[in-house]
Protein backbone atom coordinates (compact mmCIF):
# COMPACT_ATOMS: atom_id res chain seq x y z
CA UNK A 1 0.00 0.00 0.00
CA UNK A 2 1.22 3.44 -0.85
CA UNK A 3 1.53 5.14 2.52
CA UNK A 4 2.79 8.26 0.85
CA UNK A 5 -0.61 8.72 -0.70
CA UNK A 6 -2.16 9.30 2.73
CA UNK A 7 -3.16 12.70 4.05
CA UNK A 8 -2.93 13.56 7.74
CA UNK A 9 -4.56 15.85 10.29
CA UNK A 10 -3.10 17.56 13.33
CA UNK A 11 -5.47 15.44 15.39
CA UNK A 12 -3.68 12.29 14.14
CA UNK A 13 -6.22 10.90 11.68
CA UNK A 14 -5.22 9.70 8.23
CA UNK A 15 -7.26 9.88 5.05
CA UNK A 16 -6.87 7.87 1.90
CA UNK A 17 -8.79 9.22 -1.09
CA UNK A 18 -9.98 6.79 -3.74
CA UNK A 19 -12.04 8.73 -6.24
CA UNK A 20 -15.15 9.98 -4.48
CA UNK A 21 -14.49 7.79 -1.45
CA UNK A 22 -12.28 8.49 1.56
CA UNK A 23 -10.99 5.94 4.06
CA UNK A 24 -10.22 7.15 7.59
CA UNK A 25 -8.13 5.77 10.43
CA UNK A 26 -5.67 6.90 13.09
CA UNK A 27 -1.91 7.11 12.76
CA UNK A 28 0.82 4.90 14.15
CA UNK A 29 1.79 7.74 16.46
CA UNK A 30 -1.77 8.01 17.76
CA UNK A 31 -2.18 4.29 18.45
CA UNK A 32 1.06 4.34 20.43
CA UNK A 33 -0.20 7.23 22.56
CA UNK A 34 -3.53 5.52 23.17
CA UNK A 35 -1.92 2.12 23.97
CA UNK A 36 -4.23 -0.93 24.12
CA UNK A 37 -7.47 -0.04 22.36
CA UNK A 38 -10.36 -1.74 24.13
CA UNK A 39 -13.34 -0.29 22.28
CA UNK A 40 -14.17 1.79 19.23
CA UNK A 41 -17.43 3.71 19.11
CA UNK A 42 -18.19 3.67 15.39
CA UNK A 43 -20.29 6.33 13.66
CA UNK A 44 -23.71 5.51 12.21
CA UNK A 45 -23.71 4.67 8.52
CA UNK A 46 -25.48 7.44 6.62
CA UNK A 47 -24.40 10.15 9.03
CA UNK A 48 -23.32 13.40 7.39
CA UNK A 49 -20.27 14.97 8.96
CA UNK A 50 -18.28 18.13 8.45
CA UNK A 51 -14.52 18.39 8.43
CA UNK A 52 -13.25 18.59 12.03
CA UNK A 53 -16.42 17.14 13.56
CA UNK A 54 -16.15 14.35 16.15
CA UNK A 55 -17.17 11.12 14.41
CA UNK A 56 -15.86 8.24 16.47
CA UNK A 57 -14.27 7.50 19.83
CA UNK A 58 -11.32 5.21 20.43
CA UNK A 59 -11.02 4.01 24.02
CA UNK A 60 -8.24 2.57 26.10
CA UNK A 61 -8.81 1.32 29.64
CA UNK A 62 -8.42 4.72 31.26
CA UNK A 63 -8.99 7.24 28.45
CA UNK A 64 -11.24 8.07 25.53
CA UNK A 65 -9.98 9.78 22.40
CA UNK A 66 -12.19 11.65 19.97
CA UNK A 67 -11.65 10.94 16.31
CA UNK A 68 -12.44 13.91 14.08
CA UNK A 69 -13.50 13.82 10.43
CA UNK A 70 -10.51 14.76 8.27
CA UNK A 71 -12.94 15.67 5.53
CA UNK A 72 -16.66 16.40 5.05
CA UNK A 73 -19.06 13.86 3.65
CA UNK A 74 -21.41 10.98 4.38
CA UNK A 75 -20.31 7.86 6.22
CA UNK A 76 -20.87 4.88 3.90
CA UNK A 77 -19.20 1.96 5.69
CA UNK A 78 -17.75 1.32 9.13
CA UNK A 79 -15.13 -1.27 9.98
CA UNK A 80 -17.26 -3.81 11.84
CA UNK A 81 -14.27 -6.02 12.61
CA UNK A 82 -13.17 -3.40 15.15
CA UNK A 83 -16.19 -4.32 17.28
CA UNK A 84 -14.87 -7.84 17.74
CA UNK A 85 -11.18 -7.01 17.67
CA UNK A 86 -10.43 -3.40 18.65
CA UNK A 87 -6.76 -4.35 18.98
CA UNK A 88 -6.59 -4.21 15.15
CA UNK A 89 -6.01 -0.49 15.56
CA UNK A 90 -2.86 -1.22 17.53
CA UNK A 91 -1.63 -4.00 15.25
CA UNK A 92 -2.44 -2.41 11.92
CA UNK A 93 -3.46 1.23 12.29
CA UNK A 94 -2.97 2.13 8.65
CA UNK A 95 -4.56 -0.90 7.01
CA UNK A 96 -6.84 -3.41 8.78
CA UNK A 97 -7.47 -0.91 11.56
CA UNK A 98 -9.28 1.61 9.32
CA UNK A 99 -12.35 3.06 11.02
CA UNK A 100 -14.82 4.22 8.39
CA UNK A 101 -15.32 5.09 4.73
CA UNK A 102 -16.81 8.37 3.73
CA UNK A 103 -18.32 9.68 0.50
CA UNK A 104 -16.62 12.99 -0.07
CA UNK A 105 -18.65 16.17 -0.31
CA UNK A 106 -15.75 18.35 -1.38
CA UNK A 107 -12.56 16.47 -2.35
CA UNK A 108 -10.70 19.78 -2.46
CA UNK A 109 -10.80 19.87 1.35
CA UNK A 110 -8.09 17.19 1.34
CA UNK A 111 -5.62 19.71 -0.01
CA UNK A 112 -5.49 21.44 3.37
CA UNK A 113 -4.26 18.23 5.07
CA UNK A 114 -0.61 17.33 5.62
CA UNK A 115 1.38 14.79 3.59
CA UNK A 116 3.45 12.10 5.33
CA UNK A 117 6.72 14.02 5.79
CA UNK A 118 4.89 17.13 6.99
CA UNK A 119 2.89 15.06 9.48
CA UNK A 120 5.97 13.20 10.72
CA UNK A 121 7.74 16.48 11.33
CA UNK A 122 4.68 17.96 12.99
CA UNK A 123 4.06 14.94 15.24
CA UNK A 124 7.70 14.92 16.30
CA UNK A 125 7.52 18.57 17.26
CA UNK A 126 4.36 18.00 19.27
CA UNK A 127 5.44 14.89 21.10
CA UNK A 128 5.14 15.14 24.83
Amino acid at each position, binding site marked *: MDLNGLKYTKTHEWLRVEGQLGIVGITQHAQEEIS*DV*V*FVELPKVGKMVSQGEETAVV*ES*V*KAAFSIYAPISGTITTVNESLSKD*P*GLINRSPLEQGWIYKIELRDPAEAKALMDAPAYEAWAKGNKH
Partner: protein
Amino acid sequence: MEKKHSPGRILEPLLKDLGQDGRRAFQLPKTDLPAVAPETQIPSDWVRSKPAALPELSERDLVKHFMRLAHLNFSVETNFYPLGSCTMKYNPRVHEEIAGLSGFAQLHPYAPDSLSQGTLQLLFELERMLAEVLGMDAVTLQPAAGAHGEFTALLMARAYHEAQGRPRKKVVVTDSSHGTNPASAALCGFDVVEVKSNARGRVSLESLASVVDHDTAVFMMTNPNTLGLFEEEVMKVTQLVHDKGGLVYMDGANMNALLGQVRPGDMGFDMVHVNIHKTFSIPHGSGGPGGGPVGVKAHLKPFLPAPMVASGSAGYRLESPGPQSIGRVRSFFGNVGALVRAYAYIRSLGTDGLKQVSEGAILNANYLKELLRGIYPIAVDESCMHEFIASAKEMKASQGIKAMDIAKRLLDYGFYAPTICFPLIVEEALMIEPSETESRQTLESFADALAKIKHESEETPERLRTAPHRMPVSRLDEVQAAREPNLRW
Protein backbone atom coordinates in the same frame (compact mmCIF):
# COMPACT_ATOMS: atom_id res chain seq x y z
CA MET B 1 -23.56 -14.27 27.86
CA GLU B 2 -20.52 -15.50 26.06
CA LYS B 3 -17.59 -16.37 28.26
CA LYS B 4 -14.44 -16.31 26.24
CA HIS B 5 -12.03 -17.21 28.99
CA SER B 6 -12.00 -19.78 31.72
CA PRO B 7 -11.80 -18.42 35.23
CA GLY B 8 -8.34 -19.74 36.01
CA ARG B 9 -7.31 -20.27 39.61
CA ILE B 10 -9.58 -18.67 42.16
CA LEU B 11 -9.34 -17.03 45.58
CA GLU B 12 -12.90 -17.61 46.72
CA PRO B 13 -15.63 -19.39 44.75
CA LEU B 14 -18.61 -17.45 43.49
CA LEU B 15 -21.81 -17.64 45.50
CA LYS B 16 -23.43 -19.67 42.81
CA ASP B 17 -20.68 -22.30 42.97
CA LEU B 18 -21.08 -22.56 46.72
CA GLY B 19 -24.82 -23.10 46.50
CA GLN B 20 -26.44 -26.51 47.05
CA ASP B 21 -30.12 -26.83 46.26
CA GLY B 22 -32.18 -27.24 49.38
CA ARG B 23 -29.93 -25.33 51.79
CA ARG B 24 -31.28 -22.29 53.60
CA ALA B 25 -29.61 -19.35 55.33
CA PHE B 26 -32.95 -18.02 56.45
CA GLN B 27 -36.38 -19.44 57.05
CA LEU B 28 -39.52 -17.33 56.91
CA PRO B 29 -42.10 -17.96 59.61
CA LYS B 30 -44.77 -20.35 58.35
CA THR B 31 -47.79 -18.38 57.33
CA ASP B 32 -50.95 -18.94 59.36
CA LEU B 33 -53.11 -18.43 56.28
CA PRO B 34 -54.31 -21.44 54.30
CA ALA B 35 -52.19 -21.92 51.19
CA VAL B 36 -53.65 -21.03 47.80
CA ALA B 37 -52.14 -21.29 44.34
CA PRO B 38 -50.69 -17.95 43.12
CA GLU B 39 -52.71 -18.41 39.92
CA THR B 40 -55.88 -17.83 41.91
CA GLN B 41 -54.59 -14.38 42.85
CA ILE B 42 -52.88 -13.17 39.70
CA PRO B 43 -53.31 -14.24 36.05
CA SER B 44 -51.30 -17.36 35.29
CA ASP B 45 -49.31 -15.66 32.53
CA TRP B 46 -47.96 -13.29 35.18
CA VAL B 47 -46.60 -16.10 37.32
CA ARG B 48 -42.90 -16.63 36.84
CA SER B 49 -42.42 -19.98 35.13
CA LYS B 50 -39.00 -20.59 36.67
CA PRO B 51 -37.89 -19.19 40.02
CA ALA B 52 -35.03 -16.71 39.86
CA ALA B 53 -31.84 -18.77 40.03
CA LEU B 54 -30.59 -17.46 43.36
CA PRO B 55 -27.98 -19.70 45.01
CA GLU B 56 -29.02 -21.63 48.12
CA LEU B 57 -26.52 -21.70 50.97
CA SER B 58 -26.57 -22.41 54.67
CA GLU B 59 -26.18 -19.41 56.97
CA ARG B 60 -22.78 -20.71 58.01
CA ASP B 61 -21.54 -20.96 54.43
CA LEU B 62 -22.96 -17.58 53.50
CA VAL B 63 -21.22 -15.85 56.42
CA LYS B 64 -17.99 -17.70 55.64
CA HIS B 65 -18.12 -16.57 52.02
CA PHE B 66 -18.60 -12.90 52.79
CA MET B 67 -16.08 -12.95 55.63
CA ARG B 68 -13.51 -14.49 53.31
CA LEU B 69 -14.27 -11.73 50.82
CA ALA B 70 -14.03 -9.11 53.59
CA HIS B 71 -10.52 -10.32 54.34
CA LEU B 72 -9.43 -9.59 50.78
CA ASN B 73 -10.10 -5.86 51.23
CA PHE B 74 -8.01 -3.01 52.53
CA SER B 75 -10.13 -0.53 54.48
CA VAL B 76 -9.77 2.42 56.83
CA GLU B 77 -10.32 0.09 59.76
CA THR B 78 -7.48 -2.18 58.69
CA ASN B 79 -5.01 -0.06 56.74
CA PHE B 80 -3.76 3.49 56.19
CA TYR B 81 -5.78 4.77 53.24
CA PRO B 82 -4.15 8.00 52.03
CA LEU B 83 -6.45 8.42 49.05
CA GLY B 84 -6.24 12.05 47.98
CA SER B 85 -9.47 14.01 47.65
CA CYS B 86 -11.41 11.26 49.42
CA THR B 87 -10.74 12.12 53.09
CA MET B 88 -10.51 8.57 54.36
CA LYS B 89 -10.77 9.43 58.03
CA TYR B 90 -11.72 7.03 60.79
CA ASN B 91 -15.46 6.38 60.97
CA PRO B 92 -16.59 6.36 64.61
CA ARG B 93 -18.29 3.08 65.48
CA VAL B 94 -20.78 4.72 67.81
CA HIS B 95 -22.36 6.31 64.73
CA GLU B 96 -23.31 2.87 63.43
CA GLU B 97 -25.04 2.16 66.71
CA ILE B 98 -26.88 5.48 66.57
CA ALA B 99 -28.02 5.15 62.96
CA GLY B 100 -29.19 1.64 63.78
CA LEU B 101 -31.50 2.76 66.64
CA SER B 102 -34.88 1.44 65.64
CA GLY B 103 -36.49 4.86 66.12
CA PHE B 104 -34.35 6.13 63.23
CA ALA B 105 -33.89 2.98 61.15
CA GLN B 106 -37.50 1.77 61.09
CA LEU B 107 -39.21 5.08 60.39
CA HIS B 108 -41.28 5.01 57.20
CA PRO B 109 -40.65 8.00 54.90
CA TYR B 110 -44.38 8.70 54.73
CA ALA B 111 -44.92 8.33 58.49
CA PRO B 112 -46.98 11.32 59.60
CA ASP B 113 -45.07 14.23 61.13
CA SER B 114 -46.63 13.35 64.49
CA LEU B 115 -44.68 10.08 64.50
CA SER B 116 -41.47 11.56 63.06
CA GLN B 117 -40.63 14.42 65.41
CA GLY B 118 -37.25 13.00 66.40
CA THR B 119 -35.93 12.59 62.87
CA LEU B 120 -37.39 15.92 61.78
CA GLN B 121 -35.76 17.66 64.73
CA LEU B 122 -32.42 16.07 63.92
CA LEU B 123 -32.66 17.08 60.25
CA PHE B 124 -33.76 20.60 61.17
CA GLU B 125 -30.83 21.04 63.54
CA LEU B 126 -28.38 19.49 61.07
CA GLU B 127 -29.48 21.94 58.37
CA ARG B 128 -28.75 24.79 60.74
CA MET B 129 -25.43 23.42 61.93
CA LEU B 130 -24.25 22.89 58.37
CA ALA B 131 -25.39 26.39 57.42
CA GLU B 132 -23.29 27.69 60.31
CA VAL B 133 -20.21 25.67 59.35
CA LEU B 134 -20.52 26.69 55.69
CA GLY B 135 -21.53 30.30 56.28
CA MET B 136 -24.67 29.86 54.22
CA ASP B 137 -28.27 30.96 54.75
CA ALA B 138 -30.01 27.70 53.95
CA VAL B 139 -29.12 24.06 53.34
CA THR B 140 -30.85 21.22 51.52
CA LEU B 141 -30.04 17.77 52.83
CA GLN B 142 -31.54 15.90 49.90
CA PRO B 143 -28.66 15.24 47.48
CA ALA B 144 -27.45 11.67 47.78
CA ALA B 145 -23.81 12.40 46.93
CA GLY B 146 -21.42 15.19 46.00
CA ALA B 147 -22.14 14.94 42.27
CA HIS B 148 -25.85 14.95 43.02
CA GLY B 149 -25.29 18.10 45.09
CA GLU B 150 -23.47 19.76 42.20
CA PHE B 151 -26.33 18.87 39.89
CA THR B 152 -28.90 20.23 42.36
CA ALA B 153 -27.00 23.48 42.81
CA LEU B 154 -26.50 24.00 39.08
CA LEU B 155 -30.21 23.51 38.45
CA MET B 156 -30.85 26.17 41.08
CA ALA B 157 -28.36 28.49 39.41
CA ARG B 158 -30.10 27.95 36.12
CA ALA B 159 -33.49 28.72 37.65
CA TYR B 160 -32.03 31.78 39.39
CA HIS B 161 -30.73 33.31 36.17
CA GLU B 162 -33.97 32.55 34.39
CA ALA B 163 -35.92 34.22 37.18
CA GLN B 164 -33.74 37.28 36.69
CA GLY B 165 -34.88 37.27 33.08
CA ARG B 166 -31.33 36.54 31.89
CA PRO B 167 -30.83 32.86 31.13
CA ARG B 168 -27.14 32.00 30.89
CA LYS B 169 -25.50 29.13 29.04
CA LYS B 170 -22.00 28.70 30.32
CA VAL B 171 -20.38 27.00 33.30
CA VAL B 172 -16.68 27.55 33.87
CA VAL B 173 -14.63 24.85 35.64
CA THR B 174 -10.92 24.64 36.43
CA ASP B 175 -8.59 22.20 34.69
CA SER B 176 -7.81 20.66 38.09
CA SER B 177 -11.48 20.11 38.96
CA HIS B 178 -13.06 16.77 39.79
CA GLY B 179 -14.62 15.10 36.75
CA THR B 180 -18.02 15.45 38.34
CA ASN B 181 -17.92 19.26 37.87
CA PRO B 182 -18.00 19.24 34.06
CA ALA B 183 -20.19 16.11 34.03
CA SER B 184 -22.81 17.73 36.28
CA ALA B 185 -22.73 20.95 34.28
CA ALA B 186 -23.22 19.02 31.04
CA LEU B 187 -26.12 17.10 32.60
CA CYS B 188 -27.76 20.46 33.36
CA GLY B 189 -27.41 21.43 29.73
CA PHE B 190 -24.67 24.00 30.21
CA ASP B 191 -21.74 24.54 27.87
CA VAL B 192 -18.61 23.71 29.82
CA VAL B 193 -15.54 25.92 29.55
CA GLU B 194 -12.28 24.99 31.25
CA VAL B 195 -9.96 27.59 32.72
CA LYS B 196 -6.26 26.85 33.11
CA SER B 197 -4.47 26.89 36.43
CA ASN B 198 -1.34 29.01 36.82
CA ALA B 199 2.16 27.67 37.41
CA ARG B 200 1.49 27.60 41.16
CA GLY B 201 -1.51 25.32 40.66
CA ARG B 202 -4.10 27.99 41.35
CA VAL B 203 -6.82 29.77 39.48
CA SER B 204 -5.30 32.58 37.49
CA LEU B 205 -7.36 35.77 37.73
CA GLU B 206 -6.23 36.75 34.27
CA SER B 207 -7.30 33.52 32.58
CA LEU B 208 -10.52 33.58 34.52
CA ALA B 209 -11.27 37.14 33.44
CA SER B 210 -10.79 36.07 29.85
CA VAL B 211 -13.49 33.39 29.99
CA VAL B 212 -16.05 34.74 32.47
CA ASP B 213 -18.57 36.95 30.72
CA HIS B 214 -22.23 37.90 30.85
CA ASP B 215 -23.19 34.47 29.58
CA THR B 216 -21.43 32.74 32.49
CA ALA B 217 -23.99 31.22 34.82
CA VAL B 218 -21.59 29.69 37.32
CA PHE B 219 -17.91 29.38 38.05
CA MET B 220 -17.18 26.13 39.91
CA MET B 221 -14.16 26.20 42.14
CA THR B 222 -12.66 23.71 44.58
CA ASN B 223 -11.05 25.34 47.61
CA PRO B 224 -8.61 24.19 48.75
CA ASN B 225 -8.12 22.89 45.24
CA THR B 226 -7.26 19.35 44.23
CA LEU B 227 -3.56 20.13 44.64
CA GLY B 228 -4.24 20.80 48.32
CA LEU B 229 -3.60 24.53 47.90
CA PHE B 230 -5.68 27.33 49.28
CA GLU B 231 -6.86 29.58 46.47
CA GLU B 232 -5.14 32.79 47.51
CA GLU B 233 -7.16 35.07 45.31
CA VAL B 234 -10.48 33.58 46.23
CA MET B 235 -11.96 36.91 47.36
CA LYS B 236 -11.03 38.53 44.05
CA VAL B 237 -12.24 35.51 42.12
CA THR B 238 -15.70 35.57 43.65
CA GLN B 239 -15.84 39.35 43.15
CA LEU B 240 -14.83 39.03 39.52
CA VAL B 241 -17.58 36.52 38.79
CA HIS B 242 -20.18 38.52 40.71
CA ASP B 243 -19.23 41.63 38.75
CA LYS B 244 -20.31 39.80 35.61
CA GLY B 245 -23.55 38.74 37.25
CA GLY B 246 -22.47 35.10 37.60
CA LEU B 247 -22.70 32.82 40.62
CA VAL B 248 -19.77 31.11 42.28
CA TYR B 249 -20.00 27.51 43.38
CA MET B 250 -17.63 25.86 45.77
CA ASP B 251 -17.01 22.14 45.36
CA GLY B 252 -16.69 21.34 49.05
CA ALA B 253 -14.96 18.00 48.58
CA ASN B 254 -11.98 19.41 50.47
CA MET B 255 -13.98 21.08 53.22
CA ASN B 256 -12.10 19.00 55.82
CA ALA B 257 -9.24 21.50 55.55
CA LEU B 258 -11.45 24.49 56.32
CA LEU B 259 -13.62 23.28 59.20
CA GLY B 260 -13.85 26.03 61.77
CA GLN B 261 -11.14 28.08 60.03
CA VAL B 262 -12.94 29.86 57.20
CA ARG B 263 -16.39 29.52 55.66
CA PRO B 264 -17.33 29.31 51.99
CA GLY B 265 -20.09 31.86 52.56
CA ASP B 266 -17.60 34.38 53.92
CA MET B 267 -15.39 33.93 50.86
CA GLY B 268 -18.17 35.06 48.56
CA PHE B 269 -19.46 31.70 47.37
CA ASP B 270 -23.16 31.62 46.57
CA MET B 271 -23.45 27.86 46.76
CA VAL B 272 -21.44 24.96 48.14
CA HIS B 273 -21.87 21.24 48.54
CA VAL B 274 -20.18 19.23 51.22
CA ASN B 275 -19.53 15.49 51.03
CA ILE B 276 -20.63 14.20 54.39
CA HIS B 277 -18.88 10.90 53.59
CA LYS B 278 -15.61 12.80 53.49
CA THR B 279 -15.74 15.72 55.89
CA PHE B 280 -18.30 14.42 58.37
CA SER B 281 -16.98 10.87 58.75
CA ILE B 282 -19.74 8.83 57.10
CA PRO B 283 -18.07 5.54 56.13
CA HIS B 284 -17.42 5.38 52.39
CA GLY B 285 -19.04 1.96 52.13
CA SER B 286 -16.87 0.67 49.27
CA GLY B 287 -18.30 3.47 47.14
CA GLY B 288 -21.40 4.66 48.96
CA PRO B 289 -23.81 5.67 50.35
CA GLY B 290 -22.81 9.19 51.17
CA GLY B 291 -24.57 12.50 51.10
CA GLY B 292 -24.07 15.84 49.39
CA PRO B 293 -25.98 18.59 51.24
CA VAL B 294 -25.94 21.94 49.45
CA GLY B 295 -25.74 25.28 51.19
CA VAL B 296 -26.91 28.47 49.50
CA LYS B 297 -27.10 32.19 50.14
CA ALA B 298 -30.47 33.87 50.67
CA HIS B 299 -30.92 34.88 47.02
CA LEU B 300 -30.98 31.20 46.02
CA LYS B 301 -33.24 30.01 48.81
CA PRO B 302 -36.50 30.16 46.78
CA PHE B 303 -35.04 27.62 44.35
CA LEU B 304 -34.14 24.91 46.88
CA PRO B 305 -35.49 21.43 46.09
CA ALA B 306 -38.50 20.07 47.92
CA PRO B 307 -39.23 19.20 50.67
CA MET B 308 -37.62 21.17 53.53
CA VAL B 309 -38.04 20.76 57.28
CA ALA B 310 -39.78 23.61 59.08
CA SER B 311 -40.49 24.19 62.73
CA GLY B 312 -43.52 25.81 64.31
CA SER B 313 -45.71 25.83 67.36
CA ALA B 314 -46.99 22.33 66.54
CA GLY B 315 -43.46 20.97 66.27
CA TYR B 316 -41.45 20.07 63.20
CA ARG B 317 -43.01 19.39 59.82
CA LEU B 318 -42.12 18.75 56.20
CA GLU B 319 -42.87 21.75 54.05
CA SER B 320 -43.91 21.78 50.41
CA PRO B 321 -41.82 23.79 47.98
CA GLY B 322 -42.52 27.33 46.90
CA PRO B 323 -43.38 28.13 43.29
CA GLN B 324 -39.75 28.74 42.27
CA SER B 325 -38.33 25.49 43.69
CA ILE B 326 -36.46 23.31 41.18
CA GLY B 327 -38.65 20.46 42.45
CA ARG B 328 -37.58 17.09 43.62
CA VAL B 329 -34.13 15.62 42.95
CA ARG B 330 -34.83 12.13 44.32
CA SER B 331 -37.49 10.16 46.15
CA PHE B 332 -38.37 10.87 49.78
CA PHE B 333 -36.23 13.07 52.01
CA GLY B 334 -32.63 12.02 51.40
CA ASN B 335 -29.97 9.66 52.73
CA VAL B 336 -31.28 10.14 56.24
CA GLY B 337 -29.28 7.27 57.73
CA ALA B 338 -26.08 8.99 56.60
CA LEU B 339 -27.33 12.37 57.83
CA VAL B 340 -27.90 10.91 61.29
CA ARG B 341 -24.22 10.00 61.41
CA ALA B 342 -23.20 13.51 60.28
CA TYR B 343 -25.35 14.98 63.03
CA ALA B 344 -23.70 12.74 65.62
CA TYR B 345 -20.25 13.72 64.35
CA ILE B 346 -20.85 17.46 64.61
CA ARG B 347 -22.49 17.11 68.01
CA SER B 348 -19.60 15.10 69.40
CA LEU B 349 -16.98 17.57 68.12
CA GLY B 350 -18.51 20.99 68.64
CA THR B 351 -16.79 24.18 67.51
CA ASP B 352 -13.36 23.42 68.93
CA GLY B 353 -13.47 19.82 67.86
CA LEU B 354 -14.12 20.79 64.24
CA LYS B 355 -11.17 23.17 64.38
CA GLN B 356 -9.00 20.35 65.74
CA VAL B 357 -10.02 18.30 62.74
CA SER B 358 -8.87 20.80 60.12
CA GLU B 359 -5.70 21.63 62.03
CA GLY B 360 -4.90 17.96 62.46
CA ALA B 361 -5.50 17.28 58.78
CA ILE B 362 -3.24 20.17 57.78
CA LEU B 363 -0.52 19.30 60.26
CA ASN B 364 -0.50 15.65 59.19
CA ALA B 365 -0.34 16.55 55.50
CA ASN B 366 2.50 19.02 55.96
CA TYR B 367 4.44 16.64 58.19
CA LEU B 368 4.14 13.83 55.68
CA LYS B 369 5.12 16.17 52.88
CA GLU B 370 8.19 17.14 54.89
CA LEU B 371 9.10 13.48 55.41
CA LEU B 372 8.97 12.92 51.66
CA ARG B 373 10.89 16.04 50.73
CA GLY B 374 13.97 15.18 48.77
CA ILE B 375 12.64 11.71 47.96
CA TYR B 376 9.79 12.62 45.68
CA PRO B 377 9.29 15.95 43.94
CA ILE B 378 6.25 17.81 45.28
CA ALA B 379 4.06 19.35 42.57
CA VAL B 380 3.79 22.78 44.18
CA ASP B 381 6.07 22.79 47.16
CA GLU B 382 4.48 25.24 49.56
CA SER B 383 2.60 24.85 52.80
CA CYS B 384 -0.31 22.68 51.85
CA MET B 385 -3.74 22.28 53.34
CA HIS B 386 -5.11 18.76 53.93
CA GLU B 387 -3.32 17.05 51.01
CA PHE B 388 -0.43 17.44 48.62
CA ILE B 389 0.79 15.95 45.37
CA ALA B 390 4.02 14.09 44.91
CA SER B 391 5.08 13.17 41.42
CA ALA B 392 6.78 10.15 39.91
CA LYS B 393 7.89 12.02 36.83
CA GLU B 394 11.60 11.79 37.70
CA MET B 395 11.36 8.05 38.27
CA LYS B 396 9.46 7.72 35.04
CA ALA B 397 12.16 9.58 33.15
CA SER B 398 15.06 7.67 34.69
CA GLN B 399 13.69 4.16 35.28
CA GLY B 400 10.37 4.10 33.49
CA ILE B 401 8.61 3.70 36.84
CA LYS B 402 5.13 5.22 36.84
CA ALA B 403 2.86 6.46 39.61
CA MET B 404 0.83 3.29 39.04
CA ASP B 405 3.86 1.10 39.85
CA ILE B 406 4.47 2.97 43.09
CA ALA B 407 0.80 2.66 43.99
CA LYS B 408 0.85 -1.10 43.45
CA ARG B 409 4.05 -1.55 45.43
CA LEU B 410 2.62 0.41 48.37
CA LEU B 411 -0.05 -2.28 48.66
CA ASP B 412 2.72 -4.80 49.32
CA TYR B 413 3.82 -2.65 52.24
CA GLY B 414 0.33 -2.74 53.70
CA PHE B 415 -0.76 0.75 52.66
CA TYR B 416 -3.60 1.61 50.32
CA ALA B 417 -2.42 3.74 47.42
CA PRO B 418 -2.78 7.49 47.06
CA THR B 419 -5.02 8.76 44.28
CA ILE B 420 -2.94 8.48 41.14
CA CYS B 421 -2.91 10.30 37.82
CA PHE B 422 -5.21 13.03 39.17
CA PRO B 423 -5.38 15.98 38.92
CA LEU B 424 -4.67 15.76 35.24
CA ILE B 425 -2.44 18.83 35.30
CA VAL B 426 0.33 17.08 37.25
CA GLU B 427 2.37 14.46 35.47
CA GLU B 428 2.43 11.03 37.22
CA ALA B 429 0.60 12.46 40.22
CA LEU B 430 0.42 10.76 43.61
CA MET B 431 -2.22 12.67 45.52
CA ILE B 432 -1.77 12.04 49.22
CA GLU B 433 -4.30 12.91 51.93
CA PRO B 434 -3.50 11.43 55.34
CA SER B 435 -6.50 12.92 57.24
CA GLU B 436 -6.42 13.99 60.88
CA THR B 437 -7.17 10.59 62.37
CA GLU B 438 -3.79 9.01 61.53
CA SER B 439 -1.00 8.97 64.08
CA ARG B 440 2.47 10.37 63.57
CA GLN B 441 3.86 6.81 63.69
CA THR B 442 1.62 5.73 60.82
CA LEU B 443 2.77 8.67 58.71
CA GLU B 444 6.39 7.84 59.45
CA SER B 445 6.07 4.21 58.45
CA PHE B 446 4.25 5.25 55.28
CA ALA B 447 7.07 7.67 54.43
CA ASP B 448 9.58 4.86 55.11
CA ALA B 449 7.76 2.64 52.65
CA LEU B 450 7.82 5.34 49.99
CA ALA B 451 11.53 5.85 50.61
CA LYS B 452 12.14 2.11 50.23
CA ILE B 453 10.19 2.13 47.01
CA LYS B 454 12.32 4.97 45.72
CA HIS B 455 15.37 2.87 46.53
CA GLU B 456 13.85 -0.16 44.82
CA SER B 457 13.24 1.90 41.72
CA GLU B 458 16.98 2.20 41.37
CA GLU B 459 18.03 -1.28 42.53
CA THR B 460 15.21 -3.58 41.45
CA PRO B 461 12.91 -1.62 39.14
CA GLU B 462 11.38 -4.78 37.71
CA ARG B 463 10.02 -5.57 41.17
CA LEU B 464 8.01 -2.34 40.98
CA ARG B 465 6.82 -2.82 37.44
CA THR B 466 5.33 -6.20 38.37
CA ALA B 467 4.00 -5.20 41.80
CA PRO B 468 2.04 -6.08 43.85
CA HIS B 469 3.63 -9.34 44.96
CA ARG B 470 2.08 -9.90 48.37
CA MET B 471 -1.57 -9.26 47.60
CA PRO B 472 -4.22 -11.93 47.00
CA VAL B 473 -3.89 -11.26 43.27
CA SER B 474 -1.15 -9.73 41.18
CA ARG B 475 -1.72 -6.99 38.66
CA LEU B 476 -5.05 -7.53 36.91
CA ASP B 477 -5.62 -7.45 33.19
CA GLU B 478 -7.86 -4.43 32.72
CA VAL B 479 -7.48 -4.51 28.95
CA GLN B 480 -9.09 -7.92 28.71
CA ALA B 481 -11.79 -6.87 31.19
CA ALA B 482 -12.75 -3.94 28.97
CA ARG B 483 -12.38 -5.72 25.62
CA GLU B 484 -14.51 -8.71 26.53
CA PRO B 485 -16.65 -7.56 29.43
CA ASN B 486 -17.73 -10.41 31.72
CA LEU B 487 -20.12 -8.65 34.07
CA ARG B 488 -22.08 -11.55 35.57
CA TRP B 489 -22.01 -15.28 36.09
